């Protein structure tokens, strides 16, 4: 029983980590509270569903296409709204957070524009067959997510740590103005970061849709609270933190649901957030961004 719950917790946590990867990347580099992230997630899943259903593609062809589509949507939103707000924010100096909020409000509304057009199809794409491994049961889709999280993390870490582009992105996360002085095209780097996090969101949407056997336009919104908890607990912009915090949150939720009752899941997730803020405000690994 406990073994099964621990496994379930890790598998649930893997989905949270998957959701939070692109989210923490976007936060860490662009420093904007972008509430459209949940929409990119849903959009990826819906595009994949459409490709599989109406275009007859296999899911493994549809997955990367959907991820790229979500990435392009992210770049478009960034170009339309966020870039303008960011440049204004630099000119106006110091009102960063108020402007981030404006971006959030505006973008949230823009998200709602996009939302009105979708009928809510709750659709099955593949069936996850269950496997019995000793005392625990897992579905193939769950193992798939676990593998996908591993692959995506490895790819992201390689990109950020092992390439020149990654160096530019990390420089920009650290000090955008200094990065620009060193000859880094920060506008281009910001667009690439938007694209990458959109892709990660889209891929996450497809995989989590597969695991849950349900895809609908609000699936991203439902993940947002967990996404916020994960990126704060893990430390803003910290990939390793996002993974550890995702797994931690998954375990905490499953154990709470198992021993205390499932209605307390959200409250416990929030207590975890408040506890981390009080004791370790920079998150488990991250460096806190001080006021000022």
């Amino acid at each position, binding site marked *: 029983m406990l073994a099964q719950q621990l496994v379930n917790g890790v598998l649930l946590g893997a989905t949270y980590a998957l959701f939070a990867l692109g989210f923490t990347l976007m936060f860490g580099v662009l420093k904007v509270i972008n509430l459209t992230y949940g929409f990119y997630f849903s959009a990826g899943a819906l595009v994949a569903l459409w490709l599989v259903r109406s275009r007859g593609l296999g899911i493994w062809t549809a997955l990367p296409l959907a991820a790229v589509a979500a990435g392009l949507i992210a770049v478009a939103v960034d170009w339309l709204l966020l870039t303008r707000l960011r440049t204004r924010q630099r000119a106006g100096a110091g009102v960063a957070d108020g402007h981030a909020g404006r971006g959030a409000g505006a973008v949230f509304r823009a998200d709602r524009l996009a939302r009105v057009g979708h009928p809510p199809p709750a659709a099955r794409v593949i069936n996850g067959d269950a496997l019995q491994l000793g005392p625990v049961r897992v579905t193939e889709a769950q193992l798939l997510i676990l593998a996908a999280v591993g692959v995506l993390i490895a790819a992201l870490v390689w990109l950020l740590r092992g390439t020149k582009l990654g160096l530019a992105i990390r420089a920009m996360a650290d000090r955008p103005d200094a990065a620009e002085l060193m000859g880094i095209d920060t506008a281009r780097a910001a667009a690439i970061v938007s694209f990458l996090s959109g892709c990660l969101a889209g891929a996450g949407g497809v995989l989590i849709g597969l695991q849950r056997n349900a895809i609908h336009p609000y699936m991203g919104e439902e993940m947002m609270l967990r996404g916020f908890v994960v990126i704060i607990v893990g430390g803003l912009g910290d990939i390793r933190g996002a993974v550890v915090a995702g797994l931690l949150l998954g375990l905490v939720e499953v154990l709470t649901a198992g021993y205390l009752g499932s209605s307390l*899941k959200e409250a416990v997730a929030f207590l975890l957030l408040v506890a981390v803020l009080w004791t370790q405000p920079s998150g488990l690994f991250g460096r806190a961004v001080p006021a000022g």
Partner: protein
Amino acid sequence: MTMPPWLDDLLWTYGNLVHALGVNGLLALSMYVVLAVGQLSLGQAAFMGLGAYSSALMTIVLGWPFWAVLPLSVVAPVLFALVIGVPTLRLSGVYLAIATIGLGEVLRAVYLNVDLFGGALGLSGIPERAGDTLIYGLLFAALAALWLVGRSGIGRAMEAMREDETAAAVMGVNLLRYKMGALLASAALAGLAGCLNAHVSSFIGPNEYGFEPAVTILSFALLGGIGTPLGPVLGAFVLTLLPELLRDLSDLRLVLNGVIIVVAVLFLPGGLLPWRLRRRAA
């Protein structure tokens, strides 16, 4: 108090709208207080919900009189604001924004799942204890108080830290104290608005205080501008009346509302009332 018959007719026909305008005006002011020190809270709806639920329970379950319930309705929101504000206000503003988003969503889950709060059905049969006189009286009192504070040295410090925190701190502004004070005042105002709302509409439900209402409250202030406390109130009036005027458009209403916000943010960065409070030279 006697009123002319046309006013009586008007209030009878549009009673709910008149209540909503006043309550939303108060919420806009609660948003203004936080934005005025350069912070972003997405928990105004949550603070309002805490005021609404706690006051409704004091009235229904404990049977306390309204003159006691109204001031006590600020207690729960202020306590939650303390728990969230103390750790987050030392950090960059992103943390407060995220923690307050979290607060709203968690409280919604708690209201939905705990029997005391009536679950998905919410609390109904709340006696109508508040009226337009009280709502608008409090709105004007809050507006006047914020106007006076804004013109004083405190307002000068708030504006300084909104424009440049580092410079304000160097000039001797105690950032943490001002931010904390603003957050607590804002939570208290939102709690009062919640209490008034609960005691004029007789019903409150868990979905009225989630994330979407929080963004709507933020958009009051964004549309109106935060140069003076009047701006957000004007924004609240416009954004409360607009959906009523556009009722026929149903779904498109949301789209149009969204377009207005996007256009306002991109092309009216100072809001509808971009002017700042005047102050005497120091």
